[in-house]
């Protein structure tokens, strides 16, 4: 995996994020861009809820017959003159891609935006083996220059502001005029475009992910806004698609249905600007296209999710809506999660991919507010699955001792109503006295995490049940 996983230091990461004003300012923009955009797009489409049902059903059906559709996909790719490689895990996928690059004599590869290559840590692996990967999505290009990982699955550089980008460009593009003006986003964009154009032309291999794999045609589909994906897959002699197995859908019709959900949920666009279907290598008479077409199908823990309580997660189409609407993500950004995939979808997926022991905190770092599920185009029950991970932590005694003790003590009391009545009566009376006439406490025993940030409203005095009994009621 790239960048090192730091999920175990989530609380520290979160603290650092909360003490980083430029970061907080950058992620605050998600509200007026992605969230408002989705709202407008959804409001404008009366059948959106019905489409969500249809999308969910397509994916659920496909997952029930995944072996069938993957084999059908493979057959079609081969018929079109391409190659399919099966990778059980990240290491195998990286090795396969390196082999293809080396067989092609490649020194430079361009990359379309792809979270799956982040998942397998492809860039670092290629670099270690003497091949230079160049990210061509603007956001990915920026974070590659910064030596960072994406902090969001569709807006990888959402944590960066334009002043930081200008500084990065001046550092990385040292051959350009130091006196040039980089104050405006348009000038940054023009500079990146100029630099990347040369890289596109120099690339030996282009690597993309896929939003969909189509079983009926053997096509890999990418949805982008910058057109960089197209230049990545058309210009070099070799095109490699790296995609996880759950990306397959049965038909082109299914792609059309889910496409109507994808961009609306992600950015509020009706469609991404470029939607490109790649089917096999260039045929005789084609004006362009690669000479060799490879698809690497990655499992990396996913087949183990089939038939488990986490199967529904495999419906995810990576739109990022759950992330954009998550109050926790919106407070700390994506890097604090310390995982490849941040936010609610990441907190459900990460323990499946890298083990629960390495991702403690993630399932707990949620208020379970449910907004993620309410916006998920695939109706994935994310809170339910976060709770499943909490159950597994509890079963395996990974839940911190203090929390376990607190739960045991609470249960002990709560199943003994008389004792519970006595303890709560004393507690309520004690806190009320402690607060005197103030009505709220600035500090209270055992409530440090609460009173550090807010007052603790004092109990009114007697508990309801004692007051009720006093009135002779049952």
């Amino acid at each position: 995996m790239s960048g090192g996983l730091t999920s175990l230091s989530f609380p520290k990461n979160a603290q650092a994020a909360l003490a980083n004003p430029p970061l907080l300012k950058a992620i605050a923009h998600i509200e007026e861009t992605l969230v408002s955009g989705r709202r407008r797009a959804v409001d404008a489409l009366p059948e959106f809820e019905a489409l969500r049902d249809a999308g969910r059903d397509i994916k659920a059906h496909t997952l029930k017959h995944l072996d069938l559709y993957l084999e059908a996909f493979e057959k079609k790719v081969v018929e079109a003159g391409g190659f399919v490689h099966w990778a059980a895990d990240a290491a195998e996928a990286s090795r396969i891609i390196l082999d293809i690059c080396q067989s092609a004599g490649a020194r430079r590869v361009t990359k379309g935006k792809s979270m799956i290559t982040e998942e397998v840590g492809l860039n670092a692996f290629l670099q270690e083996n003497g091949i230079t990967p160049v990210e061509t999505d603007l956001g990915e290009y920026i974070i590659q220059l910064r030596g960072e990982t994406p902090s969001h699955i569709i807006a990888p550089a959402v944590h960066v502001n334009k002043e930081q980008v200008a500084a990065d460009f001046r550092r990385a593009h040292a051959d350009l005029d130091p006196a040039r003006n980089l104050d405006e986003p348009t000038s940054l964009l023009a500079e990146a475009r100029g630099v990347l154009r040369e890289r596109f032309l120099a690339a030996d291999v282009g690597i993309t992910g896929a939003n969909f794999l189509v079983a009926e045609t053997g096509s890999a589909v990418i949805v982008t806004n910058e057109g960089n994906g197209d230049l990545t897959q058309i210009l070099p002699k070799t095109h490699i698609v790296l995609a996880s197995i759950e990306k397959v859908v049965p038909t082109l019709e299914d792609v059309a249905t889910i496409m109507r959900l994808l961009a609306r949920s992600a950015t509020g666009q009706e469609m991404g600007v470029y939607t490109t279907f790649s089917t096999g290598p260039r045929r005789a008479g084609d004006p362009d296209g690669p000479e060799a077409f490879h698809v690497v199908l990655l499992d990396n823990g996913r087949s183990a999710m089939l038939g488990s309580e986490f199967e529904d997660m495999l419906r995810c189409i990576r739109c990022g809506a759950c992330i954009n609407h998550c109050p926790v993500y919106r407070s700390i950004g994506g890097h604090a999660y310390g995982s490849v995939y941040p936010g609610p979808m990441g907190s459900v997926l990460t323990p499946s991919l890298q083990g629960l022991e390495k991702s403690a905190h993630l399932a707990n770092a949620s208020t379970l507010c449910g907004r993620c599920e309410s916006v998920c185009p695939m109706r994935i029950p994310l809170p339910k699955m976060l709770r499943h991970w909490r159950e597994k932590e509890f079963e395996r005694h990974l839940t911190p001792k203090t929390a376990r003790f607190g739960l045991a003590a609470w249960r002990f009391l709560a199943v003994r109503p008389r004792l519970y009545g006595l303890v709560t009566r004393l507690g309520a009376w004690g806190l009320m006295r402690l607060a005197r006439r103030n009505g709220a406490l600035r500090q209270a025993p055992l409530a440090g995490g609460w009173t550090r940030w807010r007052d603790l409203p004092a109990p009114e005095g007697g508990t309801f049940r004692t007051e009720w009994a006093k009135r002779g009621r049952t």
Partner: protein
Amino acid sequence: MTTPKPRVGLFVTCLVDFFRPTVGFSAVKLLEDAGCEVSVPAAQTCCGQPAYNSGDRAGARSLAEQVIALFEDFDHVVIPSGSCAGMITTHYPSLFSGEPNWRLRAERLAAKTHELTSFLVDVLHISPLPVTWEGTATYHDSCSGLRELGIKEQPRQLLSAVDGLAVKEMRDPEACCGFGGAFCVKYDEISNAIVERKVADVRATGADLLLSGDLGCLLNIAGKLKREGSRVEVRHVAEVLAGMTSGPSIGEARK
């Protein structure tokens, strides 16, 4: 001949029992005014949600058994909390998979359990007796009530009948307040960042009263407003609907 009064078991919730008995009495008044015969089983404690959300299914289950046994003989179970009502209606049955008898009992209880404002509007179809509150309120939609039970219009409909009360909506009334049960102390800095945004949204409305249907959210928001020195009053919606507003609001000093 009159039809017998519906027998309602009131589950006050552990937070109301401990922090804010006024909410319980307000619920009783609203239910009795609506013609219900209200009982409060004395052995009630907690619905088991803290255990359930912490992954402790066995703990949640033992509390669920207790709640089912205590409340299953009533015609209706009413709870002044969307979160606890959601626990019973949405989650109890799943705690008893593979045990048909318990599961049936859980499902039967789930089917007759209602959050208070939803019970008044959706089941009884009544308007409470006229009450007055002079001022402007804003309403926070608590997450479980909103997204598990679909409670959105019910409290607003009831509030629209309160004399003198105007409701001014927040920019994002459906945003989580950051309470999240154990979350608010376990990840207290993040919880604080979330409630800061909620409180800013409350204050931006200019309302002098913040209402909601869940005491967890209310304690959190009231605590933050207090700490910031705000004078916005915080009350459970039942208090205003029942006209039981003579005492101090949540976190307010006693006179």
